[in-house]
């Protein structure tokens, strides 16, 4: 009989090996899925995983992947602080939207002034502050009234969603837009636009900030006292209290960091790839980032890889839909399989399979 046995220590080998095995398993299972749909499995896998990076049109896909990954990584890195500490910010999507509204509002307030040195930094600050303050609502409610931050942050997503729709047809509407909903396109306002720093590279300021966030988080987790407190609070809350860690301060800091990063991600998105405040601006980045955070095992470098892989399956999946006539549902199923395999294989890090009779009660 096959059974699971807890390892005395997490396995180092499997910590790194498990994601590789998971991707391999997904490819095998996905090939089965595509074969059942009557497509050539090898071609399908190549279209999703290979062509966007190395194929003949890779120069078109690669920047798209980076642009898609940047907000995911930025938000997920922020979320990883709270998730490691056992503080569950499910409302990053809301903080992302509010950050976008604040950033765009600053830009539109200055339109058409020509002062990028002033406006762009102010927009960044507004995005950070907007997301931060939006996250402070669940944080302070939890600290003061012990409310559940999962519910509060999640419900504030719907509030933010309504707000952005209202702003897009209200005060932020483009006065020269012939009454159409939506703000001015920030991409066409040089002082505010967040365009590729090198044309067609996908590297805009948001991508760079995401990369900085990864490095910053890595240092914080491994070297800084705050990172230690976050890890301790998540692993052993009682030991954290004994170590003198102030749980309320941690709630505020963790929700604040994730809110600030989600907010600035929203600002970079609205000033760059999206361009304008519009009812359709929210695109579930804030929710997908939760998955990215866990796929990356709440480790900054892992999150970077997970964000890129997620983005790859989106871009590659779209390509497969278009080129191979695969139904959109098949692509979603395939992405689901990837997540499922990653989480399932994760068990090998802390457990091992044993043959034979069980001994645990």
């Amino acid at each position: 009989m096959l059974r699971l046995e807890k390892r005395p220590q997490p396995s180092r080998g499997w910590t790194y090996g498990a994601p590789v095995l998971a991707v391999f398993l997904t490819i095998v299972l996905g090939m089965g899925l595509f074969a059942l749909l009557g497509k050539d499995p090898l071609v399908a896998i190549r279209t999703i995983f290979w062509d966007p990076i190395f194929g003949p049109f890779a120069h078109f896909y690669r920047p798209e992947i980076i642009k898609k990954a940047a907000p995911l990584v930025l938000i997920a890195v922020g979320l990883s602080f709270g998730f490691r500490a056992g503080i569950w910010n499910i409302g990053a999507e809301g903080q992302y939207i509010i950050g976008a509204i604040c950033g765009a509002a600053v830009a539109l307030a200055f339109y058409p002034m020509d002062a990028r040195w002033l406006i762009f930094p102010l927009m960044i600050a507004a995005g950070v502050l907007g997301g931060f303050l939006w996250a402070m609502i669940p944080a302070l409610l939890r600290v003061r009234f012990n409310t559940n931050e999962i519910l509060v942050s999640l419900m504030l997503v719907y509030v933010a969603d309504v707000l952005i729709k209202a702003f897009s047809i209200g005060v932020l509407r483009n006065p020269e837009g012939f009454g159409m909903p939506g703000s001015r396109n920030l991409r066409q306002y040089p002082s505010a636009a967040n365009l590729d720093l090198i044309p067609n590279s996908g590297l805009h300021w948001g991508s760079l900030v995401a990369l900085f966030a990864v490095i910053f988080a890595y240092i914080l987790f491994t070297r800084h006292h705050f990172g230690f407190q976050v890890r301790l609070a998540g692993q052993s809350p009682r030991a954290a209290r004994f170590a003198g860690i102030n749980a309320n301060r941690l709630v505020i800091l963790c929700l604040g960091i994730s809110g600030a990063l989600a907010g600035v991600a929203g600002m970079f998105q609205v000033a760059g790839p999206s361009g304008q405040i519009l009812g359709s601006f929210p695109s579930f980045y804030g929710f997908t980032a939760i998955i990215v955070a866990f796929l990356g095992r709440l480790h900054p470098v892992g999150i970077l890889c997970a964000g890129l892989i997620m983005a790859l399956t989106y871009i590659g999946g779209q390509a497969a839909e278009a080129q191979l006539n695969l139904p959109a549902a098949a692509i979603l199923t395939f992405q689901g399989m990837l997540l499922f395999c990653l989480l399932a294989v994760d068990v090998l890090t802390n457990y091992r399979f044993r043959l034979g009779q069980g001994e645990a009660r």
Partner: protein
Amino acid sequence: MTLLELQGLTKAYPGVIANSDVSFDIHKGQIHAVLGENGAGKSTLVKAIYGLVRPDQGKMLLEGVPFAPSDPRAARAAGVAMVFQHFSLFDAMSVAENIALGMENPPKPHALEAQIRKASEDYGLPLSPDRIVGDLSAGERQRVEIIRCLLQNPKLLIMDEPTSVLTPQEVDILFGTLRLLAANGTSILYISHKLEEIRNLCQHATVLRQGKVVGTFDPREMSNREMAEMMVGKDLNAPNRVPSPRGAPLLRVAGLSAPAPHQFGTALKHISFTLHAGEVLGIGGVAGNGQDELVAALSGEMRTDADMIALEGRGIGADGPNTRRALGLCAAPEERNGHAAAPDMSLVENAFMTAHTRLSLVERGFVDWPASRAFAQAVIARFDVRTPSPETAARALSGGNLQKFVIGREISQNPRVLIVNQPTWGVDASAAAAIRQALLDLASAGSAVLVISQDLEEVLEITDRFAALNEGKLSEAVPTAGLTMEKIGLMLGGAHDLEVAHAQA
């Protein structure tokens, strides 16, 4: 008449042989002790008999028939029952409901209550079936477990360290029950490392050391010292104390009161005592009488009015743990895994966890890992912690080793006042001796040590003064010299339900 015969039982785990060729017999109606240090293989042995572990080699015969239980259910069906050291009871449910949950085919509730009452009277175990378990003392909880076993009419009852949570009077009640059971033909396998008890209760004892049987004898014919040395395999030294004059008062607790932190906690009621430099004060009591709450209030996990606790004249009751550490007060709570130490973190991280304040291991917000590692290594070396490396996760260490590390971590910070709760709980004899010696050395060097312990022998051995904690109230502290077990028992408020049930009268 032999009930259970063990023949050459062997069980190996990766890297360690837990049992090696263990053979002995248990007769019907016999109370048979298995003695040994932690890690000697006692647990593995009883788990094999109870069907939790399958031995690699050897066989067992129950009443002459081969016996190889594949799981505890099979063992219970064959007539083997076990009372574990840690209870598996639900606080929010009644005694009868808890007992029904552990049975294969529980009878109807009223029938079960009648059975519980009958067993309770027959065996002199006072217990009311409709009480809520959360309100019971540790001794009463144990009775729930015992009655759960007795309702299955076992041929063999295994008791794993049953007295660690009992007052002396409760121990007497338990022993009365066990003797009655034995007289009625039930065999009892009694696991313990407390020698005095075994001499009182058992006619036969088997000593295990490093998985092997090193002796079988009648404990009534051996001295404690002989038995202890057989267990440990070397000569034991009693802890010795360099006498030091009682110094100035360091920690003054005055009228400390606090509400119970949770539903089944204990409120602290007007606790007052003074701890002097150079002394060891012992606080005894049965678990659940406010020990955890007192430690939390002293360590700073639970805040009180500032003036309730004063360290060298400064009110610290409202300060957090790190402020108190900075002022010289360190603490080691009872639960190692998840409270005193984070099980998934390395020893280096666990060393940093409480030592960073006093050793300045944080510089401009950044952790000084090299210095933390050096400190962890120093603790490991000084307190003989057996670990492959300081990077090993705390959960990979045995209980005794982790306890040495936790206590060593606090002592190595040179605290002015050290608070320890159950410093040698679940620790083998030689490690316990080392920990006790280290506590005495700390006091001799001029610090004040508060030892909260349920192990009364330990309290008598190392403390200068003793006070009893009972239902959140602390008695007056009295000099330990001249105290006897009986006096301590009375100070602890005696047994809960001291009157033994009617049937025995």
